[in-house]
């Protein structure tokens, strides 16, 4: 029997959504100050309006729904799902006001793409976008990568009055706390991210300066390129993405941060505390260390068969970069979108799609099915084979190392396969819709996989000329993929219970 949620349950959800939105609004001050610093007065007004609207909505929700209580897991998931959707609508306001989007839906698409660290974009005339708008585009990725709730939990919003911190934190597809206290976990995520930001600026600024870029542009580009690489986002401040720099050095540095971003924060914590043995023992980095080289090899063979590149350097540079970009869920590219489908050939495209689908680590900034679930599926497969071979009375126990020794339970297998299946079904459903609009099967599946796994590589389907229903489906895919389905499932469940429950 479905239990109809009480009005109070919705009020609690609204209250915490309001608190999180105040956090989003406060972060919008960063592009506002950027606009003031660079005397971009029109953009400053856009962000002033955006800050005021977002914080006002947050205050209104907190004021009119003052109820605070202990939050259940389901409520935590719903709060996160609704906050992400509201953040998209409010975060899109300054983007739309900038005049670089054809309509508000396109601005919403980019806002969700930013928060979900996808990287697909519908921005117009990106080469003439202001510094403040670029700052906001990349900051959405930084916030989304760490988690909007983490942003609020760590610095800005005190979720007092209830013990809902962990429920909200885990609603953003975080499997576990890095440290026992959720606030300290959120703070550690920020410490590690800001440390890498400093390293990113120190590495990328000189690289851009050597290219002849001015100091200001080098500094700004280093912040933006780092944010989108570390948060496995894929936005760039120029229309050619990373191809703009024509630089192998920039490609190597961004690859380093892409790989860093796709490792879990738990692993970063272990490395931070000198437990380097986790790199060789933990099932996630081991899984990534197996799947990335295998898929790189398949991709290179595919490119060789298609005779896409004549020399080894081109083959290696393009193949490795895009495969790593796909597997880590970043979406940085040094190719034009059309080149994938026109030049790469079926095998290389397939390897890239599989890499996008597999994604990075659980509790990282990356999207996709995740290395932990891939490892669980692999272990479960061989466990079943062992069961078949061994006598019926034999008890087959499989363990794996994920920060500690864990048993492969049926519950874990079931949950992993549920998410696995949900990703596959969503990828094909999105592809089917695009095919209905006349796009080829390969391009449709490539783009849909890119959206749901929050990657951002594009075969050219994402453009301002794409039909609005397809655009809405991609927004939905980015949202549902980033929250790993559970938040959206919980929201759907709560809505159904409100309607059909007793």
């Amino acid at each position, binding site marked *: 029997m479905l239990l109809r949620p009480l009005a109070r349950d919705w009020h609690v959800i609204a209250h915490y959504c309001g608190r999180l939105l105040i956090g989003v609004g406060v972060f919008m001050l960063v592009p506002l100050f950027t606009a003031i610093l660079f005397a971009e007065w029109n953009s400053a007004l856009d962000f*002033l309006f955006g800050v005021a609207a977002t914080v006002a909505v947050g205050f209104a929700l907190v004021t009119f729904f003052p109820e605070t209580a202990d939050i259940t897991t389901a409520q935590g998931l719903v709060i996160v799902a609704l906050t992400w959707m509201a953040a998209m609508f409010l975060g899109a306001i300054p983007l739309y006001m900038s005049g670089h989007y054809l309509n508000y839906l396109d601005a919403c698409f980019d806002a969700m793409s930013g928060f979900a660290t996808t990287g697909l974009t519908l921005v117009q005339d990106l080469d003439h976008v202001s510094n403040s708008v670029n700052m906001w585009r990349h900051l959405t990725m930084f916030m989304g990568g760490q988690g909007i709730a983490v942003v609020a939990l760590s610095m800005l919003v005190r979720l007092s009055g209830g013990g809902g911190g962990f429920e909200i934190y885990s609603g953003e597809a975080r499997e576990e706390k890095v440290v026992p206290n959720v606030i300290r976990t959120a703070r550690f995520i920020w410490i590690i991210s800001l440390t890498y930001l400093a390293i990113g600026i120190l590495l990328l600024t000189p690289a851009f300066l050597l290219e002849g870029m001015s100091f200001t542009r080098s500094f700004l580009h280093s912040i933006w390129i780092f944010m989108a690489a570390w948060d496995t986002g894929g936005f760039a401040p120029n229309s050619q993405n990373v191809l703009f*720099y024509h630089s192998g050095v920039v490609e190597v540095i961004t690859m380093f941060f892409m790989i860093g971003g796709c490792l879990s924060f738990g692993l970063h914590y272990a490395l931070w505390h000198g437990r380097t043995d986790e790199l060789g023992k933990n099932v996630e980095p081991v899984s990534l260390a197996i799947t990335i080289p295998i898929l790189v090899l398949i991709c290179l063979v595919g490119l060789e068969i298609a005779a896409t590149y004549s020399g080894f350097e081109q083959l290696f540079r393009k193949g490795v970069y895009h495969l790593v970009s796909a597997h880590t869920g970043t979406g940085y590219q040094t190719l*034009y979108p059309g080149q994938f489908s026109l030049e790469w050939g079926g095998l290389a495209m397939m390897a890239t799609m599989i890499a996008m689908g597999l994604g990075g680590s659980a509790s990282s900034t990356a999207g996709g099915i995740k290395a932990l679930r891939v490892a669980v599926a692999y272990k479960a497969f061989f466990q079943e084979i062992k069961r078949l071979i061994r006598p019926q009375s034999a008890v087959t126990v499989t363990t794996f190392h994920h920060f500690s020794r864990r048993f492969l339970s049926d519950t874990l297998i079931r949950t992993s396969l549920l998410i696995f299946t949900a990703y596959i079904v969503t990828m094909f459903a999105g592809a089917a819709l695009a095919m209905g609009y006349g796009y080829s099967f390969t391009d449709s599946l490539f783009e849909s996989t890119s959206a749901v796994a929050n990657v951002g590589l594009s075969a050219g389907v994402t453009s301002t000329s794409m039909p609005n229903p397809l655009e809405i489906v991609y927004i939905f895919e980015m949202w549902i993929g980033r929250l790993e389905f559970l938040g959206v499932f919980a929201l759907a469940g709560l809505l159904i219970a409100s309607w059909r429950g007793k």
Partner: protein
Amino acid sequence: MKRNAPRKRTVQNRETFNLRQHGLGVLAAVGYASLIIVISAILAIVSYLVFASVAQGAEAPATLTPSTQMIGQAKQLDGQVLVYEGEAIGEALERGRFAFVNTNDGSNAIGIWMSKSDSGRISTFGDYDHTGDKIRVTGEFHRACAEHGGDLDIHASKVEILIAGTVRTHPVSVSKIIASVIALAVLAASGLLYQRRKNSKAKSASQEHWD
């Protein structure tokens, strides 16, 4: 009879006279026609020579290849000398004696590999505050450049500055000012309301505590 005889003679004389006149007229006409033909021929030769020399100085209109065609038909166009026009954006990315200048034709930006002397002639690059110089590039198109890690680019043999770049102005919108003021007023009102409710809640909580 007497009367008729002179008349006849007169007619004869007249005919003789007319014939003479007619002969002269034909000659004159032929002369005029020849003169006109000669003058026309001279004029034609002179004008041909003049226009031919002018035409020799001007080039035939260049066939531009847009970026969408370069990307869409990259395999067919690979290695061909193409003409491309667009706005120089960002900055010249220097590599020793050469530089990459990314050039946007409105659909995509293509990297142009050119000498530093050519990139030095570009005075303005496009960004938020500037519209960059419009340049025309003639050069060899590479689908996957062997020299530059497989990038799609053009190695320029000739770079022309067509239109100098300009400063872009962004006049502050009055409607945005009004909208921002209204939003700030709403924010202030909601903030005050929030603070008031918070204070009253704290007050009632402390009263309950004393009771």
